[in-house]
């Protein structure tokens, strides 16, 4: 866990939970696991504030605890989970596009509550939209959607706290998710009564981030294949991934072999949509294997061909591609050419770089050194045995240590993310007074509208915001929007790096 990650985590905590939680989080981040008393001493915060902060962190699964001895508990931050906070909009978008707005509402509410019983969740949402005729959201519809989402694995049962014998400190035990059986009649009844006191429900649920991440991964792979070959090949990739889930661990570096016969079967059922794919399945498999960035590999001939999906390799290719983009933008396309050349050749001498990259000697050298300076490539001196002429000359071999370059990239992502968050916070605080004023005006106007006051009075209130003020506000809004888009994009980029680092490093 790097210093840069700590800075991002800190900025995110500040944004979502305020300064106190941020302080506690910083403390936990820099010291690893700690008991409350140490946090209190180090941060200088009152004990009850520290406890409140920890409670918040624990609730949202941003920290854990483990017993130090029988009475003292050590708390530990889960920085990777903190980073997920900026991914929330993406989870919602995913739900909306895949399952519609009911699913989005469910996940949104659940993310806000962190953990919650199904009954409470459904009841709360249904009550909120009771009077909204347009959306027509019923508790029964929500219930069905909830069950679909649990079945699909987007929502899972939260771990339960268990007290071990002879200890006062509970431990969290994960439970296997069982698709719940919710009583429709009781739910409808509760809606009519306006309370849920009659329903006994003590199963708690939470959002399963990992399920979303699998979706994101699949999407990236499918999109990449579509870019490289075409939609049919992309669709075939989707089918392969579908099949993969049935037989392999979802994040497995390489899936177990998948049979071409089954794929053909699957393509037949999609024949109306993708006639070409159906007609040329075998050809598409071949092209996918040979031109698809190595995402898929043929591993055997049994059953007219066996294929594996190579998640690890895909992650590597994508990280490489992201880094290439980065080199291109930072040092220019010629530098990117050198970078790629060195990566392809594994080890290469300076003279050969110039010959293959077809660049002017001087320029080539400069770019090579720049690449080195920014840690995109590294060099390894090799001593040649003294030759006959007595001129022992060391040769320098350039190469790309992808793992450490990826680390550099990740750090840059963290830095940028931090800076973007920081800038956004700055924008907000610099115009806090004005934004506040705007909010107050809006609430007042809203209230006046409800009371049916005349347009003239409303205009009067609205005009308390002067045109220059409005212009400033517009500017702030625009900038904040741009910054939050950037946040999401950086998070996407981060996702690729994290995916790559998920697999242990192999030379």
């Amino acid at each position, binding site marked *: 866990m790097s210093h840069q990650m700590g*800075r991002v985590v800190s900025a995110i905590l500040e944004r979502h939970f305020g300064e106190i939680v941020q302080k506690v989080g910083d403390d936990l981040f820099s010291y690893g696991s700690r008991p409350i008393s140490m946090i209190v001493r180090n941060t200088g915060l009152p004990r009850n504030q520290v406890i409140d902060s920890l409670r918040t962190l624990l609730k949202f699964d941003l920290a854990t605890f483990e017993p130090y001895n029988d009475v003292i508990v050590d708390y530990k931050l889960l920085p990777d989970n903190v980073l997920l906070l900026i991914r929330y909009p993406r989870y919602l978008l995913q739900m909306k596009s895949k399952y519609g707005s009911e699913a989005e509402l469910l996940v949104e509410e659940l993310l806000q509550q962190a953990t919650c019983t199904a009954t409470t969740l459904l009841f709360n949402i249904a009550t909120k939209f009771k009077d909204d005729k347009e959306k027509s959201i019923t508790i029964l519809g929500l219930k069905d959607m909830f069950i679909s989402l649990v079945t699909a694995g987007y929502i899972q049962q939260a771990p339960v706290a268990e007290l071990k014998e002879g200890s006062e400190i509970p431990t969290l035990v994960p439970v296997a998710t069982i698709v719940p059986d919710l009583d429709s009649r009781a739910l409808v009844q509760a809606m009519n009564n306006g309370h849920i006191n009659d329903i006994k429900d003590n199963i708690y649920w939470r959002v399963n981030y990992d399920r979303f991440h699998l979706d994101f991964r699949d999407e*990236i792979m499918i999109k*990449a294949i579509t*870019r*490289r*070959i*075409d*939609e*049919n*090949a992309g669709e075939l990739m989707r089918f392969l991934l579908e099949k993969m889930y049935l037989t392999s661990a979802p994040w497995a570096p390489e899936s177990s072999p998948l049979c071409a016969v089954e794929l053909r079967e699957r393509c037949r059922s999609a024949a109306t949509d993708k006639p*070409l794919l159906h*007609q*040329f399945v075998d*050809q*598409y498999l*071949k*092209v996918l294997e*040979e*031109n698809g960035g190595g995402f898929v590999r043929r591993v055997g001939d049994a059953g007219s061909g066996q294929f594996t999906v190579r998640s690890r390799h895909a992650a590597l290719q994508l990280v490489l*591609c*992201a880094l*290439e*983009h*980065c080199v*291109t*933008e*930072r040092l220019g*396309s010629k530098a*990117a*050419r*050198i970078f*790629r*050349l060195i990566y*392809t050749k594994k080890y290469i001498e300076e*003279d050969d770089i110039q010959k*293959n990259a*077809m*660049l*002017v000697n001087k*320029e080539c050298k400069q770019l090579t050194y720049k690449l080195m300076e920014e840690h995109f490539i590294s060099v390894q001196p090799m001593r040649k045995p003294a030759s006959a002429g007595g001129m022992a000359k060391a040769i320098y071999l350039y190469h790309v240590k992808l793992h450490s370059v990826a680390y550099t*990239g990740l750090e*840059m*992502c963290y*830095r*940028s993310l931090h*800076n*973007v968050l*920081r*800038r956004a916070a*700055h924008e907000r605080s610099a115009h806090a007074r004005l934004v506040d004023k705007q909010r107050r005006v809006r609430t007042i106007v809203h209230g006046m509208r409800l009371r049916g006051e005349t347009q003239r009075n409303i205009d009067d209130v609205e005009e308390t915001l002067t045109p220059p003020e409005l212009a400033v506000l517009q500017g702030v809004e625009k900038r904040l929007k*741009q*910054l939050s888009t*950037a946040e*999401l*994009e*950086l*998070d*996407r*980029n*981060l996702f690729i790096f994290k995916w790559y680092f998920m697999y242990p490093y192999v030379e």
Partner: protein
Amino acid sequence: MSVKIEDQLKEKILNVAKKNPKGISHKDITAAIPEVSSAELVPVINELLQQEYFDLFNQNGVLVYKLKAQTSKQAVKGADNEEKVVYNLIEEAGNKGIWIRDIRVRSNLANTQLTKVLKNLESKKVIKAVKCVNASKKKVYMLYNLEPDRSISGGAWYQDQDFESEFVDILNVQCHRFLSQRADKIKNNPRGPIVGRTQSYATANEVQKYITDLGISKVELDVEDVITILNTLVYDGKAESSVYPDGSKVYRAIDPLIPAPGLVQVPCGVCPLIHSCDSTGLVTPQTCVYMKEWLE
């Protein structure tokens, strides 16, 4: 017959011989130079033979004169021994040339003497000095009429040992354009993706022809040259290459697997100061001008 006429005649015969590298018979000569009687020809030919311009062959009972590949005799005619030694060393080196140091070591001549000899030969246009592309100070000597080897001249990419990067850039762009024109053939091809892929591939020969037809190159580019350029496209990430069963290389234009990622969409990703930018200090995200410009 005066000496002058004889010399002219020699030249004429040599010209005929040059046009027919396979060799010429007596008949060929008389046919080409009808104004001269064969009686006049014989002494001239004999003299040429004596001077070792020709090799004499017996082809199906006909005598054929064939021009010798390189006649060293004429070049060093009237030269002293040192010149001969140096000349032979240079001749041996072929179109790769030989470095002055090596000549000195192997000929055992003193430096000053060697320089004189080389100057002499150079002024007679028997040898020439060529600068090496990969070591700008190094000069090598070779016979005057030889075309320097690629490793010395750098081939098509060098103009007087200056690397022509603009030329390479133009070719790089043109090759890419050519590949791009057909790249989409692989997409949703009604005849299937394999046919589509074949249609989107271009062989190096096709690209070479295209480039030649464009007429942008003042030097002749062979297939190897074009492959060199196509490979730069591969290293640019704009093309991928593959090999046909018959061993010929093919290329296809491609897009990167992902569009520009988040990192390069924000100013920090391309910022030269990223490593010195911190929460406090001179460079901070709050006060950063790059951010300011970007947000405007």
